[in-house]
């Protein structure tokens, strides 16, 4: 096919370009600016080269928060993906139950992050919260503001409550798109329930699950508001995930240079993991 060459077409790209420039490129360049220089205010900057990057890369504090971040993300993925699929499998396929389940499932997704944090904070308070009080009444020594294990448990429980629905809805959509003939053929072939799941349902859900895992990875890797409201990163630094630590450094200590360098490293980690993940998924696709 012959393409018409018309340079005027660039004109139509300008609005998008301007938009992207203002909401992404220019703010990002400010961060890049801070990452390579030292400033004491008054718009005075001194060139520092890669010093902040070296400092962050070698800092134990960064390693610790990065480790916590990966641990948190893996735990919630490990719980939410199987749990989401399991719930989607048990949801009704037709009838009045469908809209009821869908509405119930979407509810947690509609609540703003800081409200979720506040809700769970109150819910889990050991002396007045329903969860905290009940656990203590049952004989558990539960206090998420004091004990590291309890803080992690509560944060993970909150995230599972808030976001499993997303996996459920995506998986459900994937399941609903499977033609009934597949189940009928499997029935005639004498396939067990497990075989139906592994040979039909799981392969057919692959695309939506890829999206679910990517979305849940990114969201949980960049989580800020909910744990900030729930635990504030505490006790100590026990639940200070990357973004909480970053904000502490940038706004709490006003270390703009290291914070900017950390932001860029953070950004590249997210980008890298997403890219690796996506490429692996797509390569499998090509083999088929």
């Amino acid at each position, binding site marked *: 096919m012959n393409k018409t060459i018309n340079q005027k077409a660039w004109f139509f790209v300008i609005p998008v370009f301007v938009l992207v420039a203002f909401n992404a490129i220019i703010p990002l360049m400010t961060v890049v600016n801070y990452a390579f220089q030292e400033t004491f205010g008054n718009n005075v900057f001194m060139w520092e080269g890669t010093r902040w990057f070296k400092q962050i890369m070698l800092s134990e504090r960064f390693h610790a928060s990065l480790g916590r971040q990966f641990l948190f993300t893996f735990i919630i993925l490990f719980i939410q993906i199987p749990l989401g699929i399991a719930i989607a499998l048990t949801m009704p396929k037709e009838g009045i139950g469908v809209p009821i389940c869908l509405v119930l499932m979407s509810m947690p997704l509609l609540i703003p992050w800081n409200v979720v944090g506040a809700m769970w904070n109150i819910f889990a308070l050991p002396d007045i919260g329903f969860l905290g009080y009940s656990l203590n009444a049952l004989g558990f020594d539960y206090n998420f503001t004091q004990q590291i294990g309890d803080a992690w448990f509560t944060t993970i429980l909150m995230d599972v409550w808030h976001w499993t629905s997303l996996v459920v809805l995506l998986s459900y959509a994937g399941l609903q798109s499977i*033609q009934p*003939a*597949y189940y*009928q*053929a499997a*029935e*005639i*072939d*004498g*396939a*067990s329930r497990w*075989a139906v799941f592994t*040979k*039909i349902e799981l*392969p*057919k859900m692959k695309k939506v699950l890829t999206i679910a895992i990517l979305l849940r990875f990114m969201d949980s890797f960049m989580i800020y508001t909910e744990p900030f409201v729930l635990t504030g990163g505490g006790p100590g630094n026990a639940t200070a995930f990357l973004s909480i630590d970053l904000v502490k450094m940038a706004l709490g200590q006003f270390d703009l240079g290291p914070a900017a360098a950390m932001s860029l490293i953070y950004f590249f980690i997210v980008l890298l993991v997403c890219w690796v993940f996506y490429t692996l998924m797509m390569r499998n696709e090509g*083999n*088929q």
Partner: protein
Amino acid sequence: MAKITLKDLSHSYLKTQSSDADWAVRDVNIDWEDGGAYALLGPSGCGKTTLLNIISGLINPTKGDILFDDKMVSNLNPVERNIAQIFQFPVIYDTMTVYDNLAFPLKNRKIEEDKIKAKVHEIAEMLELSSTLNNRASGLTADGKQKISLGRGLVRSDVNAIMFDEPLTVIDPHLKWILRSKLKELHQKINRTMIYVTHDQTEALTFADQVVVMHEGQIVQTGTPVDLFEKPKHTFVGYFIGSPGMNLLPCEFKGGDVMLNGKKIETHTKVKSNNFSKTEIGVRPEFINFSSEGIPVKVLSVSNTGRHKIVDTQSQSGKIKMIAKTSEDIPSGSAFLSFKKEYTYAYGDDWIIE
């Protein structure tokens, strides 16, 4: 292998039924002889697929019994009934190879590995899939995938029947012919009962020894392609089969005679009863000739198909189509038609009068 009998079978998807239209399948009584090649022919929505799913056990009928060799199977599931079914679009297991796809029904039945291997290779040979056995099934073309679906039915040597639910729908036209001949060939080779659902009369008539025609949930006629053509037992069979279909003209029954516009028409059989709300005379275009006297018509148009001429005429009782030889001269304007007596039938309330 078995004879399959359906007895007083009716099925409705509704909880309560008030009229005939609420039944997807009603009052079906039929024997499928062991080893027969049957076509189940009818328009979309006539209940063909429902009937098929009832036989295979995917649907439990509202009323009636299913017997395999006079043994009740109504309460058995598809695996216990040992039926193979091929669906409208190819069903394959995406993540498995062609080999694993074909072996799947056998593995589920816990058959020994070396027996599976022999059987899969035999079937792959038959279906010309041998060269692709180690490929991923999802990479094949539509007809290749449909062959896999078919193969999964064939690997089990003890199936009672193989059922096809419009299996060529997604296949390219030039491959349809090849696959259809393949099916016919397979039937001769393995001699298993095959039931082939379709809405395409060519497909049905070329595949089957016996064609079962369904209309609004009922079986209206079972017979060889020639039976259906020469003696349609129901007006639906008359106009659904044949191209163009049977001419059906409103008429009157008077004292045993069939009167078309006050003129007596000779038919295959005499009419005895008069208790019909709808009375029609039916004759196929192939069995009409021009003559010097008979039914007065006006010739409207002539179209030459190459093989023959289709002539549209207008009579006082309605339009009549007839087929003439290409060499025949077609009168223009007014003419007279005569019907061949032995192929002219009287229908009362859509059913033939015999």
